[in-house]
């Protein structure tokens, strides 16, 4: 049995997911890249579900607020309201307010802005008092009371002649419950026939009776008239809360008393002819149930399927369990390669063959397990969409956001840690990068600024780029400011790239500049630190007046990599295979003037002696090899002793005391049981350059 706190936690997580859906849909509608009908339905469902579940837990403020949001959305859905820019904007504010309320449930210390809530409710209120001209035919003007059935009978012309009398039907209904909002409408034609019936009856009935009972009242006029009996909203809620077997939608509705078996039969009959329509659609079409009921049932049904293991769309698993599984699979990979090594020494071909199929399976299991931890970066990107929208409005700038590669996957733990740095860079680009419209126009740029977010895989790493077409970084101004702040001296010679990197220095950006943006008073130095904590790198390209590009390069992490093992002395090193271009014997003769450059078929190749760089004690081996690695646009040679071949390396994070290693991103256990170190090539090269320039 799940305890209440756990259930609440699940509610909060679900609500947060739904709020995310709302936000994404609203932003899509705002951006014009959406089919509104689908999105509006999705937004409505999200609000509706949040309201329903919040009610279960007695979170009344959430229920109250969300109810108003839902009511407005309902009108939009029924085409009584236009989803215009103003309304989208209001709904986005409401979404934010709801997110605040939900967040406050787990962290009561977070204050919810009550004034904002009241303000938003007032705004929503103006939409709820729908102006007359927008309201369609008055027939539908009736609003359903929450707990009453709504009965709508358009009597057929022959009702009186058939001996039927609405009066007696009405008086019978009074025996079932209380009648409310009874309204008799009529429209008489010019050739009025007193024996024909022109009546149209609408009423609300509060009753404990089921639909069948109500329908029985109108049993004999079913043929001649149009009778619609809609269940009260309470039934909708009941539907959402009744425990269900995996059932068909129709049966679900019948059980809840929202539809009678006869109606269902009719619709099923109809469905045979209109195979493209769903039972739900047809029921709505027939007026048997309002859309909300069918949706509630569909949701319920989806929810039900959700709980059936075979149909999982999304399965939430405790991260701990997953980590444990991945650790075990890591062990299996290691044990597998140890076995493979031993088996290869036996010269038993049958055994080798048999084991190779196990190796193949292990590889598949490994890939499958690892993909479990991978998530698409799109989620982070859509959060950035919101920031771009809000900040550009705040700043009065017109910015178009372009997202590429939202489906690129990376480790979930990284996605979480990335969101802050990404947010900072994006805000920075909006604030300092993209110019105000008048300046852009003056400079002959399109008035609308462009911000491009892209993600892609490159050589065993994930690269995320944030590119703007703004003013770019002004190296001379950055330099001047850094000198003024005493970060560098005026004599110090720095490359363009080095100057750009100064913006990451602690103390470069003053708190005053960033508080307004981030609200936390942190600057770009934190961004760099966060990225480095993820063992990533951040690079800046910029062209003054044209724009700037921040590139964040992150390892795929956690994982197991396809590595290439080399040794230097008795130190085992593993390089990511996809960064290796070629391996060759190290010929001292090809050295360029005894410098650390090599003539590689006419090209100059800088190289690093790993023994020297890593200060390994053993004397150089008599025969050395050079591994040519390529990363991004750079190429370098690494001088090692022996080349030991490819392997699958399970990355084990380095112990916490080794948090500041250079060029090593992790460790692994080799088939022999030895420990190997996994090299982070770009970091290694960067370190090599820095020790060289320090000399």
């Amino acid at each position, binding site marked *: 049995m799940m305890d209440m706190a756990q259930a609440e936690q699940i509610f909060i997580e679900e609500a947060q997911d739904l709020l995310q859906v709302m936000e994404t849909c609203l932003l899509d509608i705002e951006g014009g890249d959406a089919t509104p009908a689908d999105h509006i339905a999705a937004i409505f469902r999200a609000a509706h579900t949040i309201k329903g579940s919040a009610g279960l837990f007695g979170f009344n403020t959430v229920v109250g607020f969300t109810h108003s949001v839902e009511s407005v959305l309902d009108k939009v859905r029924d085409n009584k309201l236009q989803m215009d820019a103003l309304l989208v904007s209001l709904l986005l504010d409401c979404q934010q307010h709801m997110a605040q309320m939900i967040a406050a449930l787990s962290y009561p210390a977070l204050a919810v802005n009550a004034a904002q809530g009241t303000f938003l409710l007032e705004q929503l209120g103006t939409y709820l008092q729908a102006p007359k001209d927008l309201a369609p035919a008055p027939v539908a003007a009736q609003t359903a009371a929450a707990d009453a059935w709504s009965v709508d009978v358009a009597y057929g012309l022959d009702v*009186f002649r058939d*001996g039927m009398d609405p009066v007696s039907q009405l*008086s019978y209904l009074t025996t079932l419950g209380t009648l409310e909002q*009874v309204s*008799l409408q009529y429209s008489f034609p010019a050739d009025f026939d*007193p024996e024909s019936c022109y009546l149209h009856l609408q009423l609300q009935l509060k009753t404990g009776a089921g639909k069948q009972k109500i329908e029985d009242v109108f049993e004999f006029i079913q043929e001649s008239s149009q009778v619609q009996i809609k269940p009260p909203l309470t039934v909708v809620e009941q539907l959402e809360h009744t425990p269900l077997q995996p059932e068909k939608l129709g049966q679900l509705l019948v059980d809840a008393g929202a539809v009678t078996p006869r109606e269902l039969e009719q619709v099923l009959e109809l469905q045979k002819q209109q195979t493209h329509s769903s039972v739900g659609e047809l029921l709505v079409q027939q007026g048997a149930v309002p859309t909300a009921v069918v949706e509630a049932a569909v949701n319920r049904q989806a929810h039900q399927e959700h709980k059936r293991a075979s149909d999982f769309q999304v399965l939430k698993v405790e991260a701990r369990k997953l980590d444990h599984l991945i650790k075990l699979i890591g062990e299996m990979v290691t044990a597998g390669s140890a076995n493979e090594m031993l088996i290869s020494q036996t010269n038993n071909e049958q055994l080798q063959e048999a084991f190779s199929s196990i190796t193949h399976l292990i590889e598949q299991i490994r890939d499958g397990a690892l993909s479990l931890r991978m998530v698409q970066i799109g989620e982070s990107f859509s959060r950035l969409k919101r920031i771009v929208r809000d900040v550009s409005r705040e700043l009065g700038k017109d910015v178009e956001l372009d997202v590429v590669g939202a489906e690129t996957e990376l480790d979930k733990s990284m996605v979480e840690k990335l969101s802050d740095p990404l947010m900072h860079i994006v805000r920075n680009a909006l604030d300092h990068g993209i110019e105000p419209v008048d300046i852009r126009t003056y400079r002959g740029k399109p008035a609308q600024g462009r911000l491009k977010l892209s993600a892609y895989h490159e050589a065993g790493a994930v690269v995320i780029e944030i590119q703007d077409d703004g003013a770019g970084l002004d190296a001379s101004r950055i330099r001047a400011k850094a000198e003024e702040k005493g970060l560098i001296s005026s004599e110090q010679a720095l490359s363009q790239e080095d100057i750009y990197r100064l913006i990451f220095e602690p103390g470069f950006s003053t708190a005053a500049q960033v508080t307004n943006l981030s609200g936390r008073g942190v600057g770009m130095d934190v961004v760099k630190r966060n990225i480095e904590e993820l063992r990533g790198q951040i690079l800046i390209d910029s062209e003054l007046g044209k724009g700037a590009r921040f590139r964040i390069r992150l390892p795929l992490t956690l994982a197991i990599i396809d590595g290439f093992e080399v040794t230097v002395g008795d130190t085992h090193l593993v390089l990511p295979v996809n960064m290796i271009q070629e391996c060759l014997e190290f010929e001292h003769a090809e050295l360029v003037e005894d410098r650390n450059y090599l003539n590689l078929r006419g090209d100059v190749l800088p190289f690093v002696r790993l023994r020297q760089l890593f200060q390994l004690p053993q004397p150089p081996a008599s025969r050395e090899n050079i591994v040519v690695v390529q990363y991004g646009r750079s190429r370098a040679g690494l001088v090692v002793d022996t080349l030991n071949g490819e392997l699958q390396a399970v990355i084990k994070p380095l112990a916490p005391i080794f948090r500041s290693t250079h060029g090593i991103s992790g460790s692994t256990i080799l088939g022999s049981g030895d420990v190997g170190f996994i090299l982070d090539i770009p970091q290694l090269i960067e370190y090599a350059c820095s020790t060289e320039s320090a000399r």
Partner: protein
Amino acid sequence: MAVTIERKADFHILVFSAELSIFSVRDDFDSLKTLSQEAVSQLMIDLSHVQDFDSAGLQLLLYLRQQLQSEQPLRWLGLDNPVISKVLALFRLDLTAMEA
């Protein structure tokens, strides 16, 4: 026995008989048709004798009100007749009210 039309002072009084239902509405309606040919100043509708009243009868009254009220204000007699008042209450109708 359909509706009878009495003339008293300035009033035309439409007196419905005991039956105002699907069985009488055709006749009632026919008798009323003559009314439109007369110059009618003020109309009074007397329901006090009605003993059988159904939806068809109600519909006829509603039709009358719609047809006649624009020309003259309608006055009603016998709205307190329980046969009538019960049905009007069921439908939450007030015949004296101007039609919306």
